[in-house]
């Protein structure tokens, strides 16, 4: 074994329990210099805990961590950082109101004669970015005005500025659109070329196979296996993670489900953000909305739901014209919207599962609340949220279970049209599958579904038809099951035309 192959970091026999529940069971993990190492597993498999142990947020109950051959004990995130282990957490760790440079050098601003040397700090920051080949992010730009992808880059550069030898990233692409991911890819590859070990946690299989050299699979707190990426297929990977195969990943329509009459008809609709939007959704149909980030997908959902209503055109629901000017009216008309950010827009995090599930009923449909609320326990258990968990505060649930609560809340209103905006963002494979199955079931019951997603495979796998948006307008319609390139071409077409000009 050469020196280059000897691991930079070795974790062996790492165990951790919270309140008597073992979340990590004797985990072994090795990171080599200059590799991108994927850590995969369903939510609750222990990925986050393992990362937090590495980051010094949690201390292991048992096990040894050695870095460059010598044993280390991190008591605080700072210690880990000084030892060269940086972590880019899932939640953003930047101050939106401060500049890029102020964020990168937070807590260790260069000083001259006791005062912060702003010019040098900016220069050093620009140098860091130049060094890593990142362009287009100014040191004096406020972080708030950066895109999500750029903010991720700033976080990684900040991590690098601590002379990191190991960088772990917890779902760095969870909030990114497909085209933004490329920026992160490039940076990650640069890091690898520098001999830095990258621990990469992601739910997106495509990224793992595009980017990672080795994969460690966690299941229920134990390592299933560590393997070279080349020696495993996506299918095997999913099977090892969940014991299911990817070919059955997207459930087929339920037997007997067929398209009914048109339930939602939008014609010539528009507002400040979108224009000339016309489409129909039939009972039992799933229509996908594809497009780049900012192309107007969410704006259509918001317009339908009365958040920022259409100012022209017409929307008909079951033949009757509707023009909700508030979500309240939209709910009354029979619409439901599962928002893209469940923590901010979907849930009262410090309330119980039951209270959240009843929220819309109690607030908007008090007349029907009593009758429909009786259905809630059934809905919850059909989503595999046990009755016991009904009293738990939602914030203690995993992302997947939180999303199920959001769904339960809307199912209780018995909507005619359901708009799902990024319904599987940041949830594990098992919960994704549950969401897909639920969508099929709703279709069979005649609900018209509009599905918005940045993950093309899921749109292609689930939608009967796909509308592609570009710059606020529909640039084309495709049948379900087409290939990704066809969608991307429509989504980006005018842009490539501009670039060619």
């Amino acid at each position, binding site marked *: 074994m050469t020196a280059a192959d000897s691991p930079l970091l070795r974790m062996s026999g790492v165990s951790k329990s919270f309140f008597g529940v073992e979340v990590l069971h004797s985990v072994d993990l090795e990171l080599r210099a200059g590799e991108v190492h994927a850590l995969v597993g369903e939510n609750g498999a222990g990925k986050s805990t393992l990362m937090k142990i590495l980051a010094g947020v949690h201390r292991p109950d048992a096990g040894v961590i050695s870095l460059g051959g010598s044993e280390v004990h991190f008591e605080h*995130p*700072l210690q880990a*950082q000084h030892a060269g282990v940086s972590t880019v*957490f899932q939640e953003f*760790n*930047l*101050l*939106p*109101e*401060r500049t890029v440079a*102020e964020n990168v050098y*937070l*807590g*260790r*601003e260069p*000083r001259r004669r*006791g*005062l*912060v040397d*702003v010019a040098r700090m900016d220069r050093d920051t620009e140098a860091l970015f130049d060094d890593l080949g990142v*362009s*287009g*992010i*100014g040191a*004096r*730009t406020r972080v*708030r*005005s*950066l*895109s999500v*992808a*750029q903010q991720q880059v700033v976080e990684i550069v900040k991590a690098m500025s601590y002379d990191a030898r190991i960088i772990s990233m917890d779902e760095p692409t969870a909030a990114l659109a497909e*085209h*933004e991911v*490329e*920026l992160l890819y490039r940076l990650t590859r640069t890091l690898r070329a520098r001999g830095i070990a990258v621990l990469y946690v992601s739910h997106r299989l495509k990224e793992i196979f595009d980017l990672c050299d080795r994969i460690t699979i966690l299941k229920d707190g134990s390592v299933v296996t560590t393997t070279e990426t080349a020696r495993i297929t996506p299918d095997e990977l999913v099977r090892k993670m969940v014991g299911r195969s990817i070919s059955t990943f997207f459930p087929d329509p339920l037997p007997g489900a067929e398209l009914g009459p048109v339930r939602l008809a939008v014609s010539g609709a*528009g*507002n*400040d*953000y*979108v*224009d*000339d939007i016309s489409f129909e959704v039939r009972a039992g149909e799933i229509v996908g909305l594809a497009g*780049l*980030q*900012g192309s*107007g997908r969410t*704006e259509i959902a918001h317009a339908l739901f009365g958040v920022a209503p259409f*100012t*022209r055109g017409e929307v008909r629901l079951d033949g009757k014209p509707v023009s909700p000017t508030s979500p309240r009216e939209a709910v009354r008309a029979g619409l439901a919207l599962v928002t893209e950010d469940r923590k901010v827009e979907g849930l009262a995090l410090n309330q119980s599962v039951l209270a959240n599930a009843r929220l819309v009923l109690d607030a908007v449909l008090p007349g029907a609340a009593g009758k429909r609320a009786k259905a809630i326990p059934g809905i919850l258990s059909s989503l595999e949220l046990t009755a016991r968990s009904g009293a738990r505060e939602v914030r203690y649930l995993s992302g997947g279970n939180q999303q199920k609560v959001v769904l339960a809340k809307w199912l209780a209103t018995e909507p005619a049209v359901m708009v799902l905006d990024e319904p599987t963002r940041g949830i594990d494979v098992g919960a994704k599958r549950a969401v897909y199955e639920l969508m099929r079931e709703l279709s069979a019951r005649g609900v018209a579904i509009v599905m918005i997603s940045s993950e093309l495979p899921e749109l292609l796998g689930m939608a009967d038809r796909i509308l592609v948006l570009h*710059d*606020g*307008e529909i640039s084309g319609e495709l049948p379900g099951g087409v290939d990704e390139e066809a969608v991307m071409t429509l989504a980006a077409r005018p*842009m*490539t035309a*501009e*670039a*060619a000009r």
Partner: protein
Amino acid sequence: MTLTQQAEAPRTAAAVEGRRRAPVRLGTTGIIYLALVAILVIGTVLVAADGDNLLAERNIVDMLTRSSVLGFIAIGQTLVILCRSLDLSVGYVAALSSLVGATTMDGDPARVPLGIAAALGVAAAVGLVNGLVITKLKVNAFIATLGVALIIRGYLDTEYKGPAGSVPDSFQNFGYTRIGVVPLSTAVMLAVAVAGIVLLRRTRTGYRMFAVGGNDEVARLSGLRTDRTVIVAHVLCSMTAGAAGLLLASRFSTGVAAQIYSAGYDLDSIAAVVLGGTLLMGGRGGIAGTIAGVLILAVLDTVFRLLQIDPFFRDVLRGAIIIVAVALYARRQIDRHAVRARFGKHGRAAGGQDAPRPVIPEARA
């Protein structure tokens, strides 16, 4: 930027554009000073219509004098609000330090430095208590400083039934001397403001205050001692309130309690800070804006006095102006998060936006 790069990372284009445009853009502080000028102009016109001159020397002196006491307090209040804290005890601290200062000086010019030190020392101690209660006992700042305020009030009401102590003539100069139209006290206040601006913009302590107020957890994970930052802010805040108390003592030539703590400096200072564009939720703002907020309130008060507006109605007007101003900021804040409108009232056909638009609309302030 080449075309290929643009195709690869369209969003960076907007950011670069933003960076280029940034210096031209009028910041929040600039807007507040514009508002100050606008209010001065409107006030001048209104007062002129009433047959008086707002910009006469005595009126300018009146405005500046009014702004010095509130200015001191609001500077400190800015620091704590930036840290996402709050100080409701400033009025009581000012009252306490006016009494401590005046009784320590006791009419003896030689004891002036001692009196100043004692007043500021006591104020700093109160700030330390505020900061410790908030950070270590984890009491909400609103409640913590309200409690401390009540304690001070109880002490003042039992110990000092009326004015106490005496301020020597030499120290009364602090309250009454003028350099041209600028009262000495206002000049000192502005000097403190400049010191505060340097603190916030050029020292690590200031940077930490923005970080702690912006996001406590981010600050902690970046290795900052967040508690210490909040405590420092509270100590400095109480000390500026102490300075205000000394100024009031020099004007009254004695230390007084009820007259000071019932003057409403606590809420006025918060109003001035918020008028000055500092977020009540912390993390953004600054002292330059606060000073504009203080001046706006001072101009309003002087205009109201010259127009002989009923004091009760004056409060109604002040309240309305503060609410309108903050509502306008809130709008700006909302607009910032919204995607910029892409289509006109009647869509593209009628709107005719043929000019090249950014590929991804970037919300900009």
